[in-house]
């Protein structure tokens, strides 16, 4: 993979010096030199190690556990099972009024029950003096079961799918007009079925937890994407005050959604520490991650489109069936983008779910839209072929002015511009339309295009900013760094908001002792923190000005906030060079070591107020605007005529993601999303045996994520136009990159070969 220029448009006029620049990530040196500490790397004197024993049946009850052999392994401290584990409180019922109730990965109260709900559920934990002894003893725990019938075959259960209920966060159904009738009447139409398999996140760092109790106080190092949820959940499960639970997670080695919920490994490490009175560490094996952490649901989708001969859509129908576990998981918004992308006269979207005796599904990069855009955007390509129309032209003819399904305004939408930019960089004009018409020796060459779309979210974030008398700035917020570059971006934002050099700002994150940050999800973290951070900086400027204007010696004496701007490390009268002073001077004269401003509060009342504020803003925003990131994905493939092997040879992604805070880390996020989209298109599939629901390829050797050789140079570019309704004009970029990517590949494969593969992944056997 090679670096490509990220933008060729002239840099927009910027108010500040840091925002937008491709600044190297601040955590880079720590990671490349190995000094960054991950959850399994915190030293504790006298630490013990834990390993899981997984159920080998799909559903039933444990009838006996033989721990003698395991206990006989030298160094084994305990074999904890449902027969001897102390009681824990079960996870609380899920309620949208208390978002942290969503935290538990499953409803199962591990080791407090003899019931087995899926193949791989933890049924015992072994704790030992060494990791090796724990792992060996775990293999020696003998469990007997009484099996009960189980339902595990997703494909076979389609007929039993039930409609998904809507809630304030997610709608299961929506329509405008009578789409079925419009479809039946349409002069040109397609009515197609698509399937996508289960996927797993495969973050580089397997889930790991280090836990230590001190009385009722608990310290946990856990690679989590949601420190707040984890803290609340552990306090609830173990019946201790949340204030006494400290979660430390400054570095998370990738997550992609897999570390959003609280899964068995974390809970059971804390339990093992409780039982043994030792600090305990558990690093899941890769197989352990597959067996105890949910993945992306499989899907079966129908997309039907009707159009006039002019290509104007008269009907758009998108329905989906996805899976949840009987013990948890939530439906995915597979049809979400289909409410927003095309100005169809009649629309029907509907999501159905089947409940299976398997581990809960969970969020994975762009849950819903990643697989939903595959079906929708592949179907649009098929319709373009039916119409004999260029697929970009078809999209442009149906580009809506307002949100198609309900007429809401778009806060901002520049999909046309993204297509124009992408088409030019890609050289779309050189494409000859007939499938199979482009060749390079024995390679069949194909070019495909698809829209990317991902709604933007904003969540509550508590932040403090401190200006010290030496002119340095400290930003504190318990947000998460899974590799996206969050600390760097927030440092850039604070630097510009306060008019200080980037190097003067330090950002603390990843610790529950800090003001509570947003969860890292929904591509919302940067925007959510930015909103509070800019407010906090504004407050801080005002209080620093208040100090200065009261002071006889200050050039800012009597200045009003409106007359003052932050630059050159201090406050200055706007338009009057030399008529201000540095923050250091203000604080020194005032005899203060620092000044600090906070947004949001972590008191109990503050937390409730924050949630209420979030929900009301969220609901009001939802009523007024449709906000999203979007883009155009351009893909060129080469298909081997003999073997059907598909190689992606070129990629251009042109995005409308609002304002970009850091050109380098933003491009990495978009590019990483595309890489994951290529994996989804061509090779990724979790093999679930339909006979028992057991995952059969829980390893990086057999679950095929793309390797370097699968990835061509990826040219990522973006429009960099701020969204007027979002903090600093930024919309999230973490997920939009994966959306549309699989469809672009599928469409390119069709262009190369004339073959439509509607069941992912597009492995070569489907092209022979």
């Amino acid at each position: 993979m090679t670096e490509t220029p990220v933008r060729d448009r002239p840099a927009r006029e910027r108010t500040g010096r840091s925002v937008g620049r491709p600044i190297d990530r601040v955590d880079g040196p720590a990671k490349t030199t190995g000094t960054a500490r991950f959850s399994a790397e915190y030293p504790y004197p006298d630490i013990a190690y834990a390993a899981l024993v997984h159920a080998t049946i799909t559903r039933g009850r444990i009838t006996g556990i033989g721990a003698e052999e395991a206990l006989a392994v030298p160094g084994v401290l305990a074999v904890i099972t449902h027969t001897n584990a102390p009681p824990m409180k079960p996870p609380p019922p899920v309620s949208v009024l208390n978002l942290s109730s969503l935290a538990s990965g499953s409803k199962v109260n591990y080791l407090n029950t003899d019931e087995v709900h899926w193949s791989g559920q933890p049924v015992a934990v072994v704790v030992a003096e060494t990791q090796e002894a724990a792992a060996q003893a775990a293999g020696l725990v003998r469990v007997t079961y009484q099996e009960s019938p189980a339902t595990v075959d997703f494909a076979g259960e389609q007929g039993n799918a039930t409609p998904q209920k809507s809630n304030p966060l997610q709608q299961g159904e929506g329509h405008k007009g009578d789409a079925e009738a419009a479809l039946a009447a349409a002069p040109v139409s397609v009515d197609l079925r698509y399937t996508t398999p289960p996927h797993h996140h495969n973050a580089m760092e397997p889930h790991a937890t280090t836990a230590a109790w001190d009385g009722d106080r608990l310290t946990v190092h856990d690679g989590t994407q949601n420190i707040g949820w984890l803290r609340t959940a552990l306090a609830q499960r173990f019946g201790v005050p949340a204030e006494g639970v400290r979660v430390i997670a400054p570095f998370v080695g990738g997550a992609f959604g897999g570390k959003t919920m609280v899964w068995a490994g974390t809970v059971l490490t804390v339990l093992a520490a409780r039982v043994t009175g030792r600090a305990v560490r558990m690093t899941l094996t890769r197989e352990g991650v597959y067996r105890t952490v949910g993945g992306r649901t499989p899907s079966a989708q129908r997309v039907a489109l009707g159009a006039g001969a002019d290509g104007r859509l008269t009907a758009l129908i998108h329905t989906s069936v996805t899976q949840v576990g009987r013990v948890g998981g939530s439906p995915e918004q597979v049809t979400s983008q289909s409410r927003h992308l095309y100005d169809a006269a009649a629309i029907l979207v509907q999501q159905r779910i089947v409940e299976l005796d398997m581990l809960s599904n969970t969020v994975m990069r762009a849950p819903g839209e990643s697989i939903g855009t595959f079906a929708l955007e592949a179907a649009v390509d098929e319709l373009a072929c039916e119409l004999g129309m260029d697929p970009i032209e078809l999209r442009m003819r149906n580009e809506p002015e307002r949100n198609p399904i309900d007429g809401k305004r778009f806060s901002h939408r520049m999909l046309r511009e993204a297509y124009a930019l992408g088409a030019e960089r890609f050289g779309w004009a050189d494409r000859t339309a007939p499938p199979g018409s482009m060749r390079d020796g024995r390679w069949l060459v194909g070019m495909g295009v698809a829209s990317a779309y991902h709604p933007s979210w904003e969540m509550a974030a508590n932040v403090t900013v401190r200006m010290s008398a030496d002119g340095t700035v400290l930003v504190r917020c318990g947000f998460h760094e899974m590799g996206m570059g969050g600390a760097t971006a927030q440092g850039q934002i604070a630097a510009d908001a306060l008019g200080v050099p980037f190097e003067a700002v330090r950002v603390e994150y990843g610790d529950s002792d800090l003001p509570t940050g947003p969860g890292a999800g929904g591509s919302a973290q940067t925007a959510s923190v930015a909103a509070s951070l800019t407010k906090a900086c504004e407050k801080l400027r005002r209080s620093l000005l208040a100090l200065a204007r009261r002071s006889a010696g200050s050039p800012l004496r009597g200045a009003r906030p409106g007359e003052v701007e932050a630059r050159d490390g201090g406050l200055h009268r706007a338009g009057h060079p030399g008529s201000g002073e540095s923050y250091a001077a203000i604080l020194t004269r005032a005899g203060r070591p620092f000044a600090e401003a906070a947004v949001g509060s972590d008191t109990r009342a503050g937390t409730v107020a924050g949630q209420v504020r979030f929900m009301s803003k969220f609901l009001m925003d939802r009523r007024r605007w449709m906000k999203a990131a979007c883009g155009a994905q351009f893909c060129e493939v080469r298909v081997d005529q003999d073997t059907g092997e598909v190689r992606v040879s070129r990629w251009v992604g042109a995005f409308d993601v609002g304002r970009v805070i850091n050109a380098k880390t933003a491009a990495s996020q978009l590019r990483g999303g595309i890489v994951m989209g290529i994996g989804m298109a061509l090779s990724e599939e979790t093999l679930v045996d339909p006979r028992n629901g057991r995952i059969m390829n829980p390893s990086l050797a057999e679950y095929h994520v793309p390797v370097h050789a699968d990835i061509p140079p990826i040219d990522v570019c973006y429009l960099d136009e701020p969204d007027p309704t979002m903090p600093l004009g930024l919309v999230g970029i973490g997920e939009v990159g994966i959306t549309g990517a699989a469809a672009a590949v599928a469409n390119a494969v069709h262009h190369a070969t004339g073959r439509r593969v509607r069941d992912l992944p597009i492995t070569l056997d489907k092209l022979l």
Partner: protein
Amino acid sequence: MRPFAYVSATDVAGAVRAISAEPGARFLGGGTNLVDLMREDIERPGTVIDITRLPLDGVEELPGGGVRIGALVRNSHLAAHPLIRARYPVLSQAILTGASAQLRNMATVGGNLMQRTRCVYFYDGAADCGRREPGAGCDAIGGFTRNHAILGASDRCIATHPSDMCVALAALDAEIEIESVRGTRRVPLTAFHRLPGDTPHLETVLAADELITAVELPASALAATSRYRKVRDRASYAFALVSVAAALETGEGVVTGVRLALGGVAARPWRAHEAERALLGAPATEESFLRAAEAELAPAVARSQNGFKIELARRTIVATLRQVLTEGGAA
């Protein structure tokens, strides 16, 4: 992983003595397969005999033009060796399509020959597998069979042998030299791996107390014009769905010499004798290649998900022979 004793052998006699004293022991080459399988609790040796210090790491030219390869030669070393690249390019190419650079740096020739199947049910202790546990059934049948065998399988086991290197060796008429306290013996590579029959757990003809000491390649003019083609699910770092090792010699438009072997299709690297017979003396054309492929694949049996391999093998045989014909051997 279970605890085990570790001993290190410094000469061949010591290594075979050590294993004859404890037939449940295992030799340790690069460890890239053995250690994985020990972690998975599939291999449970009480003793591991490290053989990496044995003086078996040379590649030597034999009188008459053949080559002798020590059993401890690392895969990457072998692939890069000038003699191999010049005289047996198919072998060099096959090795380089396997695993990753890091694994090839560790993996030895002996270990590569002995590596075990990648059947996902073989790897899952919760599944029934007669290759792993003598007498057990086979959960692959009726399950995920996409990677499984189309030739030489039985109703007891449909696993494939995963090696790329061995496919090239099969085409090159390699012989394996084996040492034990009883003496030295030689086995043709094509007779080394067993088809499953009723005893899938018996994977090779190597006895529990035998050590592989070398692989010998006979001199072959034909081998210089040879290629390896591996078809897989991603561009690198995946096992073969189907692979083809081919060497071809033509005169006046007619096939005068040919060696052909297939990977990913059977529990052994599959020497394509039927195809070779069909090709020898036939015109060197696409039609002959296709007919030969069909002759070889006539007995192929498809399972629930691997029927595509029959078509893929046919096409890959034709494509590889075509490429050798038009472009010559691998450089």
